[in-house]
């Protein structure tokens, strides 16, 4: 099998809209691409027991998580005819309204990117050891759990 360089997924803090815009711009030279699909996970101000979440603080088993991300990447490339794929996830504190996950897939035609993005996001949520605590204004917190 071809050996691909492992990519780093984690970024400290929120993923900036400018970073996402730059990432899109970088693909303008790749003219075999005809379709992109992007998923952005945004921190929601959940209301729990009359308190509103202000932020999520993410932590992870980083080594295992990076390995899982790599595995999911490879499985996605195997399953779908993609030109390229990018995954970024936050660590540390991300405020409500900010972006914590950025997944970006590109292919010659549209159908495949819709399927690939769903496959990717669902697997990331289910398989990657990332933990999040929702922090309230009074500094109390609850631990978040993907359903």
């Amino acid at each position, binding site marked *: 099998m071809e050996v691909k360089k492992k990519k780093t997924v984690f970024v400290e803090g929120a993923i900036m809209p400018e970073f996402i815009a730059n990432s899109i711009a970088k693909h303008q030279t790749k003219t075999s691409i005809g379709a992109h699909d992007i998923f952005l996970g945004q921190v929601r101000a959940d209301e729990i027991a009359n308190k509103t979440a202000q932020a999520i603080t993410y932590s*992870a*088993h980083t*080594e295992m998580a990076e390995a899982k991300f790599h595995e999911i990447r490879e499985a996605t490339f195997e399953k779908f005819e993609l030109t390229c794929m990018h995954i970024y996830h936050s660590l540390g504190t991300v405020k409500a309204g900010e972006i914590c996950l950025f997944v970006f897939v590109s292919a010659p035609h549209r159908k495949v990117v819709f399927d690939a993005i769903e496959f990717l996001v669902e697997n990331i949520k289910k398989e990657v050891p*990332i933990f999040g605590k929702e922090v309230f204004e009074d500094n109390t917190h609850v631990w978040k759990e*993907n359903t």
Partner: protein
Amino acid sequence: MTELKINYYGMIAECTACEEEFLTAAKLVSVQELDHLLKQKHPNLKKLSYKIAINHSFVTPDTLVQSDHEIALLPPFAGG
């Protein structure tokens, strides 16, 4: 005697009040026995949901843990 290093994450680390600790077992123990020992040491673990990863993988409960294994207690995932 085997000395095992255990890593805790997220709400599990909050429950045990540490991110890693060493545990000395009198004999070779399985993942299931290790889990039992950890719950004796930290009774609050009984209330929490978690999975034990050995060298980044989930293994059968009867797998024996070795001192060079990376043992991690992982609470429910919340990525994305």
